[in-house]
């Protein structure tokens, strides 16, 4: 059961932190999860420090999951205020918080979930933070930011050897990207001998690429449609198109109504798609016009069931990274809540 693995050193350039050991109280509280990932992983969680950028519904889900799991400290940064619409999907805030800072408003309920997690709130813009700010964290997870910010933060994290995630929910769609640089992890395999099970461990590592590079991934241009779709999720292209649209127009596509199509935005989306698809000779059926008008309807909308799924997968992946057990997402997760497809694509 108990084994000695040397502390895999992913954090060489960090300040040496005091290691907190688990006490009996924590062992009892976390019993049902320690049985899943072990004492060692729980101790790593207990000593971890995570930054979440953005405080909307997806962030609510991720924060809830991380706090329940018992991470050491969680820092939330958001410079925006709670709106009335936010109340529809952000269960960590309430009516009295409307008009107040989002990150600050989340704290009250988060603290109640697990008092042993240190929760720091920063009601400032992440863009105002300098490079050294990121050094504090083991993992940085960015939600609700446009592409340029994502790339900028990702590159800073890369330089500082900090694991980076970006994720968002757009209506029924959601995505997770991660750049874990060079991630070392332990893979476990259970081997059965009659009624006895033994666990074997293997040390492995995975090389990641930056968001900027991943978006330049060269798709094979001579693949048949079916095979292409088996290898690459069409939801990735949907997210790609959306991120590029936002970059070009400094805003998300705008939905008009159930009866009226926003043809102007639709055409802009088509242009982005066509440009990429022509470059690699990708069949338009991978992302048809109908799908593009679906993005317009879903862009920027957060509904909780989808946040619950994506936030669950995202938080679990962050826990995986911290506990250095098993291969995390490599490197895109794309989700369509209507079809129920959730696919991992490796675009490295």
């Amino acid at each position, binding site marked *: *059961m*108990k084994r000695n693995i040397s502390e895999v050193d992913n954090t060489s350039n960090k300040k040496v932190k005091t290691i907190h050991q*688990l006490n*009996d109280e924590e*062992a009892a*509280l*976390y*019993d*049902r*999860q320690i*049985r*899943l990932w072990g004492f060692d992983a729980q101790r790593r969680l207990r000593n971890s420090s995570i930054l979440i950028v953005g405080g909307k519904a997806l962030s609510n889900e991720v924060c*809830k*999951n991380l706090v*329940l*799991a018992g991470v050491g400290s969680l820092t939330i940064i958001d410079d925006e205020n709670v709106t*009335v*619409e936010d*109340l*529809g*999907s952000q269960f960590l805030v*309430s*009516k009295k918080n409307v008009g107040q800072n989002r990150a600050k408003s989340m704290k009250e309920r988060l603290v*109640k*979930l*697990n008092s042993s997690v240190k929760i720091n709130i920063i009601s400032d813009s992440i863009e105002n933070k300098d490079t050294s700010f990121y050094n504090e964290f083991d993992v940085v997870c960015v939600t609700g930011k446009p592409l340029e910010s994502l790339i900028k933060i990702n590159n800073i994290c890369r330089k500082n050897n900090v694991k980076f995630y970006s994720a968002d929910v757009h*209506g029924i769609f959601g995505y997770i990207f991660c750049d874990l640089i060079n991630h070392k992890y332990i893979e476990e395999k259970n081997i*059965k*001998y*009659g*009624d*006895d*099970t033994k666990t074997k461990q293997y040390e492995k590592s995975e090389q990641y690429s930056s968001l900027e590079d991943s978006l330049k991934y060269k798709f094979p241009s001579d693949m048949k449609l*079916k095979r292409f779709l*088996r290898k690459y999720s069409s939801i990735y292209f949907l997210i790609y198109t959306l991120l590029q649209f936002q970059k070009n127009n400094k805003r998300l596509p705008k939905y008009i109504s*159930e009866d009226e199509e926003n043809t102007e935005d639709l055409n802009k989306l088509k242009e982005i798609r066509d440009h990429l698809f022509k470059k690699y000779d990708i069949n338009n059926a991978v992302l048809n016009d109908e799908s593009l008008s679906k993005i317009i*309807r*879903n862009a920027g*909308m957060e*509904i*909780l*069931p989808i*946040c*619950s*799924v994506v936030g*669950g*997968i995202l*938080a*679990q992946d962050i*826990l995986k990274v911290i506990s250095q057990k098993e*291969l*995390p*997402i490599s490197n895109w997760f794309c989700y369509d*809540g*209507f*079809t*129920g*497809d959730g*696919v*991992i694509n490796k675009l490295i």
Partner: protein
Amino acid sequence: MDRLSNLRQVLGKKLLEKVENSKILMVGSGGIGCELLKNLVMSGFKNIEIIDLDTIDLSNLNRQFLFQRQHIGKSKSKVARKSALEFNPNVNIVAHHANIKDPQFNIKWFKSFDIVMNALDNLDARRHVNTMCLAANVPLIESGTSGYLGQATVIEKNVTECFECQPKPTPKTFPICTIRSTPSAPIHCIVWAKNYLFAELFGKSEDNDEIDEEVTEENNKEIENLKKESQALKELYQYAGTPEYSEKVFDKVFNQDINRLLKMENLWKTRTKPTPINTEQYKKALEINMDVDEDKNDSKIKDDQKIYSIEENINMFKECLELLVQRQLKGKKIDPEFSMSFEKDDDIIMKFVAATANIRAHIFSIEQLNRFKIKEIAGNIIASIATTNAIISGIIIMDAYKILNNQLEECNTIYLTHDSSSNVFVKEFLAKPNPRCAVCRKSYFVLTINIEKFTLNDLLNKVLIKPKDNNGLGLNGDITICEDQRILYDFDFDDKLNDTFSKVKIEDGKYLNITCDDDDKMYNIMIYIINDSSLDKDFILEGDSTSISYILPPEPEPEPEPEKTNKRKHSDGDDANNKKHKVITVDIVDDDDKVETVLLD
């Protein structure tokens, strides 16, 4: 702009309206339940009833986030309601702190919901809700999680498989000889300590559900011997409370019984021989280590992870046995029938089971486990985390949207896998009902009568035999009427035919099971009784008599499982991934529940 703006844009006005007007029943407010209730109140649902009989425990709090420390010991459903209302005060939640099997949760009540969502942790309640939903014809969303794995599916009568269409794996049992004579793995020693030694010394020895006592020709004689062995252990009870009791018990199970086994030489031809521990060694161990009051020095967490020496285990055995005997003697003074059952959260019992399991492991040269692991195995503890429950409960809401939007064909059985390679979810089309299913191929009817007036004869002649075109069920063949196991009527038992329902105690809310054997076909009907004393006619029969279908007899032999043809795989799944989900098609339980828990492998 308002609270519902995002939902309105994504779902559309029409669907959102349906969602707002729907009435949902959520059964269970534990792991999945907490996440699901949060999702429900934040996803447009306005009328929700929840039910759970459980109270809150410390080990729930790592995932059941509607509960906090100050709620320990309180009703799960009531606290869940209160916490969820803080997320959205504009919804109506009715909370029942009760068992879903209670009679007030009858078919009329089930019929009042548009969708039932199961968030349960045990087979028995799942089966019950499945039957009720079939009888009430209400769609059911069934779900389960275990560790990183989870699943959700939709059950609709006559359209999809029901919960019982596929046989459920039976809990793992071990052959009695493996447990009692030839253990070879740590689990065999744990089952021995818990289900044999502890049960024989302190419990009612008949609760042996993990040991398979099937008698075959070969083991016939050995089982006889084992029975004698148990009897001899029981007879030692006359020494209970005396200073020599522990020594006698120890000598019996770890010396004499082992020596008896050693005499059966053929057992040890291919196995390592066990090494008994005699009284001398036992006494010596006690001398060496007189004081193992562990709590003085170390924390529980360290002790639980420690592998003890044989001497320490022997000391632990003596100490715990004496404490348990004191408890037993005290209990028997008040009630001669007093017995104890295994309780994983009782430290003394747990230490006793762990120590004796490890002494036995030592004797048989089997790897010893620490107490943390032994507790998990003996207590059937299922690991459980918030993220899996959150993911599955998000999927449940999406299924509910599709059901309300009349898009059942878009629903799938979805499995959350623990595989980082490509598909996080594996989807299967909803399968058609199994024509041999004895649960969903049954026809369900509701019969409203005045139980003081209506007789069994009325039921037979005015309802069952009467032709279909004359408002009857048109059954033709040998009819048997039962209530549970009680036969009320069959072709050679018609004494009660003229009795009223009230006289045969078939009251409001009871079910009658009717079978009609038509030589080559078997019809199975369930009739649910509603009593209405002011009824102005003989009876009202609700249900579709044209839908009565016969049940195929069970298959003689289960086919060696081919690729299930009725479950077409979605094209995007590569084979490696499809194989994975089979691991989790066992019934999944969310919580640290009782004996019915299936041991996952």
